[in-house]
């Protein structure tokens, strides 16, 4: 009986070890994105003079470190608003995503509103909610001006809580 019990434990134990050795690395591989850090790089999105005062413009924003096979999905759009003369802050850089559930907002220059094609969120030019389901203003990205160039940081999937 002693031997029988020992062999039972041994079998179950070995099975457990084998399963763990197999499963743990695969699991770790799967959850690796949890430990990756967001890119801190600032990306050049154009010259300051490309953005006339009082304008809102869509610019292509290239992921600074895309996977080689990312293709078109490595580019996102951002909305750059430059305040009218004397306005502060000089720039506001918005993610293209609606703060409701992430669809791309579209700028309507004549009515100076951003509109979302999915669930109907509407934002003012400074990012404030104008109407519809969103409860937060458009996500703003960090930017700085170096010499004549506008630099923007990202990309982050702009979820409300990722935004600090």
């Amino acid at each position, binding site marked *: 009986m002693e031997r029988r019990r020992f062999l039972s434990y041994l079998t179950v134990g070995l099975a457990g070890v084998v399963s763990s050795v197999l499963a743990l690395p695969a699991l770790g591989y799967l959850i690796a994105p949890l430990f990756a850090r967001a890119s801190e790089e600032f990306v050049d999105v154009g010259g300051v003079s490309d953005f006339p005062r009082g304008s809102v413009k869509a610019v292509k924003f290239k992921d600074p470190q895309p996977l080689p096979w990312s293709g078109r999905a490595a580019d996102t759009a951002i909305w750059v608003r430059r305040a009218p003369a004397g306005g502060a802050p000089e720039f506001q850089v918005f993610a293209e995503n609606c703060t409701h559930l992430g669809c791309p907002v579209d700028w*309507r220059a*004549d009515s100076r509103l951003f509109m979302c094609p999915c669930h109907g969120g509407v934002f003012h030019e400074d990012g404030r909610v104008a109407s519809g389901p969103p409860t937060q203003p458009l996500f703003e990205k960090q930017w700085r001006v170096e010499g004549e160039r506008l630099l923007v940081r990202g990309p982050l999937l702009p979820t409300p809580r990722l935004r600090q």
Partner: protein
Amino acid sequence: MRTVWRWLELRLELKDTLRPLLAHPIPRALDGRVGWFYVLGISVLTAFVIQVVSGVALAITYVPSSESAYDSLKFITDSAALGRFIRGVHWFGACAMVLLIVAHVTRVFLMGAYKFPREINWLSGSLLFLATLLMAFTGQTLRWDQDAFWSLVVGAEQAARTPLIGDPLTRLIVGGYAVSGATVSRVFATHVFVVPGAIALLVLLHVYLVVKRGVSEPPRADEPVDRAYMERYEALVKRGLPYFPYAAWRDAAAAAIVLGVVTVLALVVGPPQLGAPPDPSIVVADPRPDWFFIGYFTILALMPKGAEAVLIIGIPAIIMAFLFLLPFARPFGQRHPLRRPLALTAAVVFIGGYTALTFAGYQAYWVPLRLEGALLPASVTGGLSGAPAVGARLFIDRSCWSCHMIDGSGGRRGPDLTHVAARLSEDRLITRIASGGPGMPDYAAILSKDELANLVAFLGTRR
């Protein structure tokens, strides 16, 4: 032939394993017309097998990379021999699987077949139901066109609302901080290996239990399930019939019908169109999920603003609670739907409601219309001059038209303004436009004083 059979039988001993499986007793009633209610399970399984076969075929050519997925699907659709047909089969197989599993769950729910001693049948079935929805979602995403890309973003944003684990969950789903290169391969592995593998294992358990516990007999009013049910059931199937061929022929017929319908639709209708390429830098997009999720898309658009944070997590949580708690909450009692008015009402309301939401989703009246081609009819603008004519132009340019209809032209998100001047005085109009409302932007900073005056002059003509 006989010698071959004997040779095999001596080595495989299939008689011992397969025969009891095929000949397991079923209630005699299932040999009647009510038997057709019992073919839904095998129909879902047929759809799953169709998906596995057509999916393997697609995987031979499909390239699961962000750069090439779209182009490889274009190739499959337009150039590959039989590619269009196989994609069509995979699409209609998916539609069939979703529809049939909903029908199956509804049938089992309404007939009270989830009760004692078949609770685990229901629980494994619930997991299969959720797995099927996950397959539908990831499958749409692998199309990797514009709709696919944004559906994934919307999905990830919803996952991000989960309390405590929202952020890491989102990062796990998309494989990083944005829907991008890492995402497609992740979704591909999920859609092709992880979930189908889980489905196969769950199907094994599910079918094992159907054989082991026996298929439920058609419910009879005032014959509630109690602890003595198992003895009664055993007595019932003692007078029963073997599954093969008395119920098996119906299952075979159902499988043939499912395959036939899917094949014909794939040939005649073909696969869904690929949308625009998945370029997130294109901001002009109208993302829509596939039809299974359009009803949910409507819910997301229409949920009250304050309740959103609760509902985005609450609705899936309630559905899961229903699926996984039902057999524990109601293990005994009446099975017949007419003796369970609440269950019957719930099923009708749920299915009717979701259908209505789906129709509403295709209308999507809450989305402001795009202005391309916007025009007010001559019946409205004819004869206008001066301020009202300028105002009519502003009505379109300033996007009023996107949400408001005048004489049949315009959006339907806001009230119809055909006769607005009969309802609102000039002062009230000015206040409304300038300060907005719950569903309308405040235009004070957008319109100049003159523009506002012109717009109101135009609306003043709408009596």
